């Protein structure tokens, strides 16, 4: 079979950073291969080497302007191990959790309402001039304002716990550097009831959309996969801390309750010459079948229950759609994300009423170690930070596996599935382009870092032949 055409879509809009999609088709127009390329190399691990370990929780926030709090906390958890301070004081752990739930809440709200909802509210085939957040603001103004205020509330929590918006310093090795004052607590409590109402409403929107469009969504970019996340010792969802659990596409355990300090025994990373982004896989299954999904869908598949009542009720409704079995529907990420948003708000409410947040015992230290791994469930999925530190307190090794990297193979699979189902000939129709973007966006990927600068961002679609000759080009923006 001779491959004659290559279709390139770059960059994908409404995902962070720059990526492009290449679809190879044969003479009959059948999709042979589809790839999501990530075109920027971060080199961040090398940047960290030589730095003093206690600087790292602040430095790593530079990696990403989208989820700096997740990197901040994952690095702090790794450095807790370095100072022997992993058993945090109640105040320190609860402050960090509050920060984390604030991040989760604002990130999920932003993604659902401002990045995904235009696709859902206007349909995949709607004109891109309307199918965007400003279109949502015009047609559904109350929803748009609500989403902004949800995002803003989460940001206020981050500011109150991390100290500032950029390069927050809240989490330090072995604890935190500030508690939550009564004034800060009271200011946040004022908004909590309204936020809870909105969070419940968001779950309802996602549930009703998914169930109403189930026939269309079930096959859309979907495939069977393994799923991985942290879970608490009793099997509950825990977004801040826990042990590693992986299940297969039918929900059977692959491994369970493994201390993430030993992650290198479980997970390896494959390298492919066409992408800067690695392809993680479960070692004992190998790269062909050992790839897995992370993030909201995976977490709802791995957790036995959620320990907050409204989110647990929402989880049960979510699971009921697949008869209690593992959910492998790519578009179900959105509903799962809203269940987590509700869980985060319940946790925020619980924490704001906890007097430990005003405690004074902020830092612990113990026996010094030279190596530490910190893992957290970031909005987009499981985030690994692994460091070795020498006797001069300098980092000599850093390895990060970010959420989007875990989802690399699944995103490629999603693109392939959509291309197979919707590509007709070699023409890149708006419908195909939209659907590829919709499938990738379900994962809420963060493909790069926060370099943005005026002058970037556009979408360019190209059809080229096997020799690289551009046959057709189409742009947006």
């Amino acid at each position, binding site marked *: 079979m001779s491959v004659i055409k290559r279709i390139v879509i770059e960059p994908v809009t*409404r995902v962070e950073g720059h990526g492009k999609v290449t679809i190879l088709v044969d003479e009959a127009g059948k999709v042979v291969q589809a790839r999501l390329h990530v075109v920027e190399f971060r080199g961040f691990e090398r940047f960290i080497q030589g730095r003093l370990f206690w600087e790292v929780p602040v430095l790593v926030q*530079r990696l990403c302007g989208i989820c700096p709090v997740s990197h901040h906390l994952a690095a702090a958890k790794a450095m807790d191990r370095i100072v022997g301070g992993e058993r945090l004081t109640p105040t320190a752990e609860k402050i960090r959790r509050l920060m984390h739930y604030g991040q989760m809440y604002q990130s999920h709200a932003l993604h659902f309402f401002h*990045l995904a909802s*235009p696709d859902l509210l206007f349909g995949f085939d709607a004109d891109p001039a309307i199918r965007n957040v400003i279109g949502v*603001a015009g047609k559904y103004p109350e929803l748009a304002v609500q989403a902004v205020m949800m995002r803003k509330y989460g940001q206020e929590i981050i500011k109150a716990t991390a100290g500032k918006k*950029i390069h927050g310093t809240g989490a330090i090795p072995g604890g935190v550097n500030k508690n939550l004052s009564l004034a800060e607590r009271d200011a946040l409590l004022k908004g909590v009831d309204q936020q809870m109402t909105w969070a419940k409403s968001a779950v309802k929107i996602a549930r009703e959309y998914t169930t109403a469009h189930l026939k269309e969504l079930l096959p859309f970019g979907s495939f069977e996969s393994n799923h991985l996340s942290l879970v608490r010792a009793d099997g509950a969802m825990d977004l801040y801390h826990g042990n590693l659990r992986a299940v297969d596409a039918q929900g059977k355990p692959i491994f369970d309750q493994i201390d993430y300090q030993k992650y290198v025994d479980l997970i390896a990373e494959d390298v492919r010459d066409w992408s800067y982004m690695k392809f993680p896989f479960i070692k004992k299954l190998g790269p062909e079948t050992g790839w897995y999904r992370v993030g909201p869908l995976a977490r709802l598949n791995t957790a036995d229950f959620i320990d907050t009542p409204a989110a647990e009720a929402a989880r049960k409704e979510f699971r009921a759609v697949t008869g209690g079995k593992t959910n492998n529907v790519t578009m179900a990420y959105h509903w799962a994300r809203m269940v987590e948003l509700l869980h985060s708000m319940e946790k925020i409410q619980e924490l704001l009423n906890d007097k430990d947040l005003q405690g004074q015992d902020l830092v612990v230290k113990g026996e010094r170690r030279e190596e530490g791994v910190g893992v957290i469930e970031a909005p987009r999925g499981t985030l690994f930070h692994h460091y070795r530190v020498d006797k001069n307190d300098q980092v000599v090794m850093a390895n990060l596996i970010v959420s989007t990297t875990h989802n690399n193979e699944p995103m490629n699979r999603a693109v392939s599935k959509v291309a197979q189902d919707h590509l007709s000939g070699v023409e890149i129709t708006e419908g195909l382009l939209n659907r590829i973007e919709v499938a990738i966006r379900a994962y809420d990927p963060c493909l790069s870092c*926060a370099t943005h*600068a005026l002058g970037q*961002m556009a979408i360019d679609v190209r059809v080229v032949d096997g020799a690289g000759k551009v046959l057709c080009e189409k742009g947006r923006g």
Partner: protein
Amino acid sequence: MNHGGRHILVYGYGNPGRGDDGLGPALVDALEPFGADGVTCESDYQLAVEDAATLAKYDVVVFVDAAMSGPEPFWFDHVQPSRELSFSSHSAMPGQVVALAREMFGAQVKAYALGIRGYRFGDLGDSLSEPARANLALALAFVQRAVSEQRFDEYTKQFGVDSGRGCACGPQPEA
């Protein structure tokens, strides 16, 4: 210093850990200690949708960002509300935030952008390049004067992207 009772927001954005991408926050860091009445300084990694709510509280906003191209050492221009396409990513462009502020919050804010020319964006590191530092110093002097005199529209004619001035020598704006 007369601000005519207007509330002005100077909003620098960019990633200080990515070389010259940090020019926006660097300008705000340098401007803030002067503490001009009626002027609020904010900075963040990038603009986002919730900034629409913030903008609604101000009469004038000056977005400050690194510019990958265009006149040196900086340019200053109007920001028109932009309804085009969508948010390219989790972040937003100034025109989109202004459009959302108007659409959702009825904001009447007048918006301008100050683009400080940068040169090195791929590097991981918290230092600005030397040419970017020089541009930053000139941009700081400009913005101090701009918020003091508030002749923003005049400045756009003098320092706009299409003003044709080139601005290679980096003079301060004339009063």
